[in-house]
């Protein structure tokens, strides 16, 4: 059921999010949650319902999907008698009284107490699916407007833009009103973050350390240091008073005394914190390690990616397994036409994967780029064309280039036919050429790289030996895992013995997913249908 001009029934509080504790909760409301004092006339159930599993909304709720125009419309409360539109439900109710309706029609019928949850009409949106539904109309409207709408409201003082007027108003009220500045120069708009930062600030710690003339147990020296100098410029900063005895005392007697070790730690910490925290700073040089084993790795890799590789390489002490992979991919990198920056990152993945025992070392360097091989901030999302998104008024976010059906179909074909299916490099599928006749040598062909695609690894070159044993082993070796949309896996030795018709499983999978994708038939089969009621509070 859905509404063009929605009569909101049983609407939840239309107060501004987010912090409303008293907001009318849901039909499955807990006994102790107070009913909101607003216009909501619904009787609240006082029985305690079982709590939902996270993310599983009330299965009895009616899922409503309003159209974009409805969601963006400001006058969504419409009088059913004269079709006059109102921005708020209260105003509509007031208006309706003016029609002199018989008593019965004035009351909201009990039928309409049924809980509603709202999904976003934007198909690619995470809130499109019922399990991510939002509990109230205001919430879904705001979500839709914020996420998929145009940001029409702009803050005067800073550059922030908002799609929802109330957000803009809320921001404007606080923008620039409160500022807390640490002596290291960082500025905060929130006091708690400022306080926490101030307590732990690396810069201040460094200054303190420098101020100490000699290493001594801290509790003797603190009063003489410059600690009291850096003051936060806050309205309520307390002036440094007479030094009070403060100690970092040792743990229980009989154990190693803390102060002494604290000092060397301090100095060593200071030295590391003096290093720039940014990821461009590399530790003492692991790159040679990598380059040795990766002969074809071009030198001209971007710093960022090198950084992430180096970090993992630096932790690598188990060289042997490293080189297995290195050589594995060395051959492939020569054969494929790769963009220069990919191999290092891929090696990075496998080094990190292959050397868990190296992880216990404390890296001397500060944190660097995460291992998550998603490298290219340059290219990573370009397939999805994120660039233009915010300029569109209502535009679906970028989607994977291949549809679900196509993917599943492809996968099924791979299993069944052993054709050499070379995969889409993002935007299109190259040829479906058949390769070797051997059924169990399934191989995706050379990856043709389009400039904007960052693929971690392409197919491992054709020359890799096929291992007759479990295909999953090869999966491990061949999986680039997070190359965006590249899926150039080389499943070597895909044993057909692995249990029945290789396609049978996938067909069943396609069928069941087909059920999921069938929007009208909906989600009764989803997750086994084991929903428990969930208390969906008000959402944004």
């Amino acid at each position, binding site marked *: 059921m859905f509404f063009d001009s929605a009569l909101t029934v049983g609407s939840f509080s239309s107060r501004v999010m987010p912090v409303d504790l008293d907001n009318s909760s849901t039909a499955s409301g807990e006994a102790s949650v107070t009913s909101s004092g607003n216009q909501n006339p619904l009787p609240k159930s006082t029985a305690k319902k079982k709590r939902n*599993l996270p993310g599983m909304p009330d299965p009895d709720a009616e899922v409503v999907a309003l159209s974009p125009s409805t969601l963006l419309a400001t006058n969504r409360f419409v009088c059913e008698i004269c079709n006059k539109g109102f921005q708020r439900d209260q105003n509509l109710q007031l208006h309706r009284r003016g029609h002199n309706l018989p008593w019965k029609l004035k009351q909201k019928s009990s039928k309409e107490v049924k809980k509603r949850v709202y999904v976003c009409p934007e198909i690619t949106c995470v809130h499109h699916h019922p399990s991510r539904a939002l509990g109230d109309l205001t919430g879904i409207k705001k979500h839709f407007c914020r996420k998929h709408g145009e940001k029409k409201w702009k803050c005067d003082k800073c550059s922030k833009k908002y799609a929802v007027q109330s957000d803009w108003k809320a921001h404007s009220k606080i923008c620039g009103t409160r500022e807390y500045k640490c002596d290291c120069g960082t500025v905060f708009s929130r006091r708690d973050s400022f306080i926490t930062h101030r307590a732990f600030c690396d810069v201040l710690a460094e200054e303190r350390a420098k101020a100490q003339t000699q290493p001594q147990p801290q509790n003797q020296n603190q009063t003489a240091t410059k600690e009291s100098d850096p003051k936060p410029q806050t309205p309520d900063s307390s002036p440094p008073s007479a030094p009070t005895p403060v100690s970092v005392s040792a743990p229980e007697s009989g154990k190693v005394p803390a102060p002494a070790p604290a000092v060397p730690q*301090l100095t060593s910490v200071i030295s590391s914190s003096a290093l720039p925290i940014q990821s461009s700073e590399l530790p003492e040089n692991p790159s040679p390690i990598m380059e040795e084993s990766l002969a074809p790795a071009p030198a001209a890799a971007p710093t960022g990616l090198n950084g992430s590789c180096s970090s993992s390489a630096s932790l690598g002490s188990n060289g042997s*397994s490293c080189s297995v992979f290195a050589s594995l991919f060395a051959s492939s990198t020569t054969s494929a036409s790769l963009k220069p920056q990919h191999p290092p990152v891929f090696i990075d993945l496998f080094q990190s994967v292959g050397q868990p025992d190296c992880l216990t070392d404390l890296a001397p360097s500060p944190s660097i780029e995460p291992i998550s091989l998603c490298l290219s901030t340059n290219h990573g999302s370009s397939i999805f064309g994120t660039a233009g998104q915010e300029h569109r008024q209502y535009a679906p976010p970028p989607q994977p280039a291949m549809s679900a059906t196509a993917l599943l179909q492809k996968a099924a074909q791979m299993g069944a036919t052993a054709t050499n299916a070379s995969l889409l490099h993002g935007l299109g599928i190259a040829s479906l050429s058949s390769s070797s006749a051997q059924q169990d040598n399934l191989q995706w062909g050379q990856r043709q790289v389009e400039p904007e695609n960052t693929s971690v690894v392409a197919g491992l070159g054709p020359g890799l030996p096929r291992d007759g044993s479990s295909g999953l082993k090869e999966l491990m070796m061949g999986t680039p895992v997070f190359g965006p949309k590249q899926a150039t896996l080389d499943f070597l030795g895909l044993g057909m013995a692995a249990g*029945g018709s290789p396609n049978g499983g996938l067909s069943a999978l396609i069928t069941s997913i087909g059920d999921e994708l069938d929007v009208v038939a909906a989600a009764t089969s989803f997750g086994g249908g084991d929903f428990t009621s969930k208390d969906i509070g008000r959402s944004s």
Partner: protein
Amino acid sequence: MKTEVRGNGGSISLQNPSLFNTPLDPITGALKGCLGSLDGACIEKLLLHCASALENNDVTLAQQVMWVLNNVASTVGDTNQRLTAWFLRALISRASRVCPTSMNFNGGSMFQRRLMTVTELVGYVDLIPWHRFGFCASNGAIFKAVEGYGKVHILDFSITHCMQWPTLIDALAKRPEGPPSLRITVPSCRPQVPPLLNVSKEEVGHRLANFAKFRDVPFEFHVKDDDPCLSNETFATQFESLLTQLTRSQLDLRYDEALVINCQNWLRYLSDETKGNTTTVRDAFLDVIKGLNPRIIVVVDEDCDLSASSLSSRITTCFNYLWIPFDALETFLPKDSRQRLEYESDIGHKIENIVGFEGFQRTERLESGVKLSQRMNDAGFVSLPFCEDTINEVKSLLDEHASGWGMKREEDMLVLTWKGHNSVFATAWTELED
């Protein structure tokens, strides 16, 4: 639930539709022109299929599903793609343990540890209110509970390296009757999970001490040392040893101190398996702290049951819960934001443990707020409600973050919500008076 969609239904264009020359069977024909992208439900289903394929040793199906998932996965994509990426990684990690490979996993995590500086950690915990919510609620309850006391001793069991305390120190400093003297004791052992620091606990304590001094709060910091022979053991082993040291004398508890026990994202790492007829470690811990006669115990954790023995149930629950932080980050950080990627990577670490491991290696055994409350009640604790001041503070905290964050009360428990979905719970307890 039934749904219908109207409006701009996106039709996905297959780039080269002619490629699919093979005759379409009825199923795929029906799907054509339908939703093009794999939404959350599909992905979840695929993950479940992959997991069950692994459990049934159906290698082919597992590979096929992983291939499909890999096409969807992207750590810089939308939230579904990102989640898929980390789940897929966890499944691969699991598969590697099931099937011997030539890769030397050594049974360890696929993840490399990332160490942060203290300043980075400060920013990290404030990226979204996920942690700060717990800090704020707990500190409020603690502040209230120690009113009138001249001495406070906090036993801090948490994974966030004392990020919670500066604001409490600040609040205590401003007490009208003057600040109490404050002692904080932390155990030397900690689960090997992110967020990880590049400095020692002692250094953290040192900075905290300097800050307390600056605010004129008498302060002491202790690291409760473990048996050094155990330094290479797992957290579980170290903790069992620590339990034996949590006594009045060994902790040097003083008679006129208000003792506060702070458990933040901690209880989930304590084993809940009964070995024979003995109490579980988790319950034993609760017994031990009860014996210390604390003034207040605050327990904060993520509101989700992730300790089921069935892998599919864990995948489903985990997938339907962890979209929350991913979604929250997506709201205000760009796709390639380093902070966002790091935060998500840490969540990925958790996913890997939950999905990829079993037995004693699966250390993440989260239980929901409701279950935890039941456990506390069974252990002889009674819940303390949060006072209005604390609640108002939490509200104004959430006000300053993206809208979408909310809070609700469930009995005496406070729950942080994102778009209405439960994310983190905060509770306060004291001993039941006989």
